């Protein structure tokens, strides 16, 4: 009997020690996380604050300082009236250009990737593995290598300096990624499902629509987020293949910061940068948790 209570006391002691150690570990982990989060967030905070400050005030107190006033003028200017290289219409045109480019390119490359993934995982044919390996090369080849070929192709297609040209580039450059994502996800869907459906009289499209697609939302969300942010943030192709009115927002932002008249309008620049960053930011905000979930979970729980 005495032994039992002694054991219990020891257990309790051990439990307290464990709890204390647990607390300490947590403390260190959270502390580090807070520090890293701050490192990431401080620059963003500076930009956000500057977008609400007055240009004169920035000049007086420096870039890093709390706002003395709260003004929205810089946002309005950045959106619709600020002059870049002689045109005074702010970022709106390039913002629409980016939307016009990113949305179709994202949709098309995702759809093509899903089809490719479906075929390469569930309707294999002689050489399909080799084909997949070739497509994977696209993941590792940096974009600048294909600048010259693209210039040649767009020139021949008559798509130089147009949003359509950029759509073509982003769809094709993106297919490697979307195919890789979808194929690897679809591989985890059991082949028996396809066999059962074939016996049930379903063909290529019906199986895709009724069995594969309903299982696909996690990976489609991942692909869409990946493509959207990637295409939206892409700069090199945008600046090389378009100019002036056709530029996507990334190229226009650089033009804006480079269009150095005498004074640098830090307030407008900050607002413009934030306008340019807003769509991917919103996508991450709303889709972020699905992104992580889609990357980590298989098709069938």
């Amino acid at each position, binding site marked *: 009997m005495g032994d039992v209570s002694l054991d219990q006391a020891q257990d309790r002691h051990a439990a307290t020690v464990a709890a204390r150690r647990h607390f300490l570990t947590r403390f260190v982990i959270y502390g580090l996380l807070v520090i890293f989060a701050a490192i990431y967030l401080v620059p963003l905070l500076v930009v956000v604050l500057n977008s609400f400050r007055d240009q004169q005030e920035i000049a007086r107190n420096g870039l890093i300082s709390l706002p003395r006033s709260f003004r929205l003028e810089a946002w309005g200017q950045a959106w619709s009236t600020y002059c870049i290289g002689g045109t005074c219409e702010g970022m709106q045109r390039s913002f629409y250009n980016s939307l016009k480019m990113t949305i179709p390119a994202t949709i098309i490359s995702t759809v093509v990737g899903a089809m490719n993934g479906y075929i390469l995982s569930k309707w294999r044919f002689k050489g399909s593995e080799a084909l997949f390996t070739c497509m994977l090369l696209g993941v590792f080849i940096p974009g600048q290598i294909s600048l010259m070929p693209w210039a040649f192709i767009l020139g021949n297609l008559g798509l130089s300096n147009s949003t359509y040209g950029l759509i073509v580039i982003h769809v094709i450059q993106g297919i490697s990624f979307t195919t890789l994502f979808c194929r690897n996800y679809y591989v985890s869907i059991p082949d028996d499902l396809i*066999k059962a459906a074939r*016996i049930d009289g379903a063909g290529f499209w019906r199986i895709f629509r009724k*069995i594969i697609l309903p*299982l696909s939302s996690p990976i489609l969300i991942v692909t869409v987020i990946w493509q959207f942010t990637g295409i939206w943030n892409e700069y090199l192709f945008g600046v090389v293949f378009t100019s002036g009115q056709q530029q996507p927002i990334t190229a226009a932002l650089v033009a804006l910061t480079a269009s150095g008249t005498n004074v640098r309008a830090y307030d407008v620049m900050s607002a413009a940068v934030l306008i340019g960053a807003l769509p991917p930011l919103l996508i991450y905000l709303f889709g972020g948790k699905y992104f992580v979930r889609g990357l980590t979970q298989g098709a069938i729980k």
Partner: protein
Amino acid sequence: MSTLTIRSLRKNYGAVEVLKGIDLEAQNGEFIALVGPSGCGKSTLLAMIAGLETVTSGEIRIDGRLVNSVAPKDRDIAMVFQSYALYPTMTVRENITFGMESRRVPKPQQDEAVKRVAAFLQIEPLLGRKPGQLSGGQRQRVAMGRALVRDPKLFLFDEPLSNLDAKLRVDMRTEIKKLHHRVGKTTVYVTHDQVEAMTLASRIAVMHQGSVQQFDEPATIYNRPANMFVAGFMGSPAMNFLPAELSEEGGRPTVVLPTADGKTASLPIVQALPSDTPRQLLLGIRPEHIYRFDPDLARRKPSIAQINAVVELVEPTGAETMAVLRLGAKEITGRFDPDGTPRMGETVTLGIDMARACLFDPTTQRLI
């Protein structure tokens, strides 16, 4: 009317020959079991019957019609998969109707069919659920429902019970037998479990390394296995094989075996021997044909032969007791009634039922 005929069917994956000339047939309403160790090609054969794998050479006929290059949906078959392969995003009802939807069966007819099958398999309460919300046994039922609703010419089962726990497996085995009895469809049933094959099938094809070793009724497969592979695979514990020498005693052929006490025993052979029987043989005895010798038994069964053995190990299982017995350098397993179980270390006189013994040629491994 629906029959299945398979002639010299072969399957290669690249240079690997997976099926090496299979001949099989199933009469109308017959239940054929394909049994064999894992990797012997059972699933491949079934997939070829279903049309899910291409035929390298040979022919498959369903009801006399050559179906080698007919699409799975046009073969009029239904299949139950080991993994059940239920469509995870559809409800049980949608799973069952998916095939009819594909074939554009009118809605009222679909409802009728679902009702019939659900009642038959007692899965009405499950119709609105998704496969993820079902237990293993329930999924199994739904998978059968999906096959049954088609009313096909041919039922194909690929190890449908191997994902269930032991108790449920036995229950479902009984259900499948009842179901076949009521539906009476021609069925090909793949299993690696010889008990399942024995209990369910009207004929069993024992497969090994891509060829059919024996295709016959369960009793024949069990009592007169065509070769040592079949003999060893069917039955648990497995048949004992004892090296023996052919001899003669009083004008009758016998086999001579070493015994426990370092001497030899000569056991009379009951069956007729062909003239080219080799002198060195393997004597195959199933554990249940080994008894504790007593004169009463010998009077009842004249084919009982005596031999002495040492009891090495005793393993009671409740209903019966297995004993490992030493005969010379060989160990054999005997199956005893718990009442008459020998004790460990004891030297016992065994009675071996020579009428049930099998003789094998050690070089060809075939039954003599």
